[in-house]
C-alpha cells in the first residue's frame, strides 16, 4: 500500500484515479482493500464449502466407484437408499439419539446452572464451574476410548459400583436395548459443560430486579422457573437446542470407536453409513446421496427450530 501522499506521483490514468488524495480516492482505495481482504476467505469458502455442496448434489446422481468411471444414473442412488434397511436403521438411531441427547444435555445443564447460580461463594463457584466444564475439553475419540472401559460389562468401574448398590451387571455396550442410551449418557457427560456454561452466563445476565419483582408477585419454585427463568433464558435455550441438534445428528466417533456400530446395527449412525459407503466401499455417488439426505435433515431441523423460536424466544 502506498501512503496517501503517494498520490502526487500522478502519471498513469488508473493509478492516478486510485491514488487521488481526495475523499473519492480514499473511498476507491477502501473498496479495493475490501475485496483484497475478503479474497482468502471467499476463495477458501468457495473451494472447500460452497462449491463442494453443489458437487455433492451432482455426485449423488452418478454411480461412481473405484472400478468404473462415473456413470449418470439419475435418482437411482436415492431409490437404493430408500430400500436400504441398514440406512433406515442408522437414520432412525441418529434421530433417537438426537432427541434423547439434546433433551438430556439441555435439561441437566439448566438444573446445574440454576444450582451453581445461587452459590455466592467464589471458591465454590469456581470449583463447580471447572468440574462441570472439564469433560468438554476431551476429544470425542478420547471420551469414546475412556467410556468404552468405564461401561465395560465385567471390568468397568460403573457396573462395579452399581453392583455394590445391588444392580445386576448392565450390558451397556453389548445389548441392542442399552447401547444407544450408553452413547447418550457419554455424549451428555461431555456436552453438559457447554450447556451449563451457556445457561450460567444467561442467568447472570438476568437482572436482579426482574427476579425480585417475581418474588414480590409470589412466583416461587416451579412457577418461577416456568414463567420467569425459562422465558428469560429462552435465547440460550434455543442456541443450545440448535447447536445440540446439529452436533448430535453428526454423531460419529463415539459409536465408531466404542461399538463399531454394533451390536448388529443398534448403534450405527447416519455419518457412519456415509463413511462406510464413501470411504470403505469407495462408492462416491451413493455416499454423496447419503450426505445430501443428511444435510437436508440438518437443514430442516435448524429451520424448524428457528421458525418455532419466533413464537417463544423472548429477548430481554
Amino acid at each position, binding site marked *: *500500500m*502506498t*501512503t496517501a501522499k503517494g498520490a502526487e506521483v500522478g502519471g498513469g490514468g488508473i493509478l492516478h484515479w486510485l491514488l487521488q488524495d481526495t475523499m473519492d480516492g480514499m*473511498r476507491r482505495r*477502501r*473498496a479495493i*482493500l*475490501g*475485496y483484497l*481482504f*475478503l479474497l*482468502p*476467505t*471467499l*476463495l*477458501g*469458502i468457495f*473451494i472447500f464449502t460452497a*462449491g*463442494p*455442496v453443489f458437487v455433492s448434489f451432482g455426485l449423488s446422481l452418478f454411480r461412481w466407484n473405484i472400478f468404473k468411471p462415473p456413470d449418470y444414473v439419475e435418482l437411482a442412488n436415492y431409490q437404493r437408499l430408500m430400500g436400504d434397511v441398514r440406512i433406515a436403521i442408522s437414520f432412525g438411531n441418529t434421530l433417537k439419539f438426537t432427541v434423547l441427547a439434546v433433551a438430556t444435555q439441555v435439561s441437566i445443564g439448566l438444573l*446445574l446452572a440454576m444450582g451453581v447460580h*445461587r*452459590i455466592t461463594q467464589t471458591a465454590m463457584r469456581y470449583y463447580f464451574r471447572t*468440574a462441570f466444564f*472439564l*469433560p468438554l*475439553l*476431551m476429544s470425542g*475419540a*478420547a471420551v469414546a*476410548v475412556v467410556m*468404552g*472401559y468405564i461401561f465395560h460389562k465385567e*471390568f468397568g*468401574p460403573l457396573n*462395579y459400583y452399581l453392583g455394590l448398590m445391588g444392580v445386576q451387571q448392565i450390558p451397556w455396550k453389548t445389548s441392542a436395548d442399552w447401547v444407544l442410551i450408553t452413547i447418550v449418557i457419554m455424549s451428555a457427560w461431555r456436552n453438559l459443560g*457447554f450447556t451449563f456454561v*451457556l445457561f450460567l*452466563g444467561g442467568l447472570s445476565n438476568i437482572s436482579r430486579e426482574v427476579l*425480585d419483582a417475581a*418474588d414480590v408477585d409470589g412466583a416461587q419454585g416451579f412457577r418461577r422457573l416456568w414463567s420467569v427463568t425459562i422465558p428469560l433464558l429462552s*435465547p440460550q435455550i434455543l*442456541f*443450545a437446542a440448535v447447536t445440540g441438534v446439529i452436533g448430535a*445428528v*453428526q454423531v*460419529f*466417533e463415539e459409536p465408531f470407536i466404542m461399538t463399531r456400530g454394533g451390536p448388529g446395527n443398534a448403534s450405527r449412525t447416519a455419518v457412519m453409513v*456415509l*463413511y462406510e459407503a*464413501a*470411504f470403505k466401499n469407495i462408492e*462416491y455417488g451413493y*455416499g*454423496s446421496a447419503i*450426505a445430501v439426505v*443428511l*444435510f437436508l435433515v440438518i*437443514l430442516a431441523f435448524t429451520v424448524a427450530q428457528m421458525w418455532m423460536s419466533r413464537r417463544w424466544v423472548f429477548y430481554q
Partner: protein
Amino acid sequence: MTANLMRDPGDVSAGQHRLQVITFVAGKYVPIILLFMLSIVIIAPMVWTFSTSLRKGKDSFTVPPKWLPTDLAIENYAEVFEKVPFDRQIVNSMLITWGTVVGQLVSASLAGYAFARLDFAGRDLLFWVVLATMMIPIQAVVIPVFIFLRNMGLVDTLWSLILPAVPTAFGTFLLRQYFLTIPIELEESGLIDGVNQWQLFYRIYLPLVKPGLAVLAILSFNFHWNEFFRPLIFLIDNENFPITLGIFQLQGYMMTGSIAVVLAGVVMSLVPVIIIFLLGQRYLIEGIMRGAIKG
C-alpha cells in the same frame, strides 16, 4: 432467598419462624450437596483415567477400581511411544492445530474487518453468503473435498487438514462483531494523523480486537486438536496421524489387556487443552456466550 428471612417477623409465631429457618437452611444446603455429588460423578471418569494410567499393566483393568495412583507405573507412558509413533503424532497435532489457528486468525481478521469497516459494492450480499455456509456440515462436503485433495496430491499430508480449515465463516462472523464494537471516531482521528488504510487496520484496529482473536484462537485450538472425522478420512500412514487417531489405534492394539497404556495416551492428549483452558478460560467461556447472544 435472603429476602424471605428478612421479612418482618413481627406477626409470625415462633413455631412458624423455626419452620421457615429449617426450610431456608434445607433450601440452601440440599442443592449444594446434590451439586457436589453430581460433580464427583462428573469428574470421576477423568480421575479414574489418570489413576489407571499409572497402574501396573496387568492389573490395570480389574475391579475394584483404584482411585489413588499408588503404583506410579510411569513406564506405561513410555510404552505409548513404542506402540505407536506418538512423538510424531504429537508434532503432527501441533502443526495441524497451530497451522489452522494462525491461518484462521489471519484470514478471518482480514475478512471480518472488511465486512465491518470497509464499504464496497456487494458487501452485504457476500456477508450473507458467508453466513449461509455456516449451516453446511462437514459431512455434506467431505466427499468432493477428499476427491479435490487427492487430485492435488494432498491426501495423507498435514495440508489436507490445514488448508480446508483455514477459511472460517464462524471466525469471520465473530471478528466482524468485535470490529463493529470499536467506535468509528477512532478511524477519523487516525486518518487525520496521516496513517494509510493498511496501517489503520493493522496498527489501530487489530490491537483493539485482541480479545476477539483470543476467543477465536482458543475455540479453534480446542476444536481442531480434538478432530477425528477428517483425519480418519484424509490420512493413511500412522506417521501422519494426529493424537486422536493415535489413541484410537492404540486402543485397537491393546484391546482390554493393558488399558493403562491407552489411558496414558489419553492423559497426554489432554495436556495442551488443559493448559489452554487454564490460561484462557475467560475467552473460552466468552466464546461460548458470544454464539448465543446473536440468537
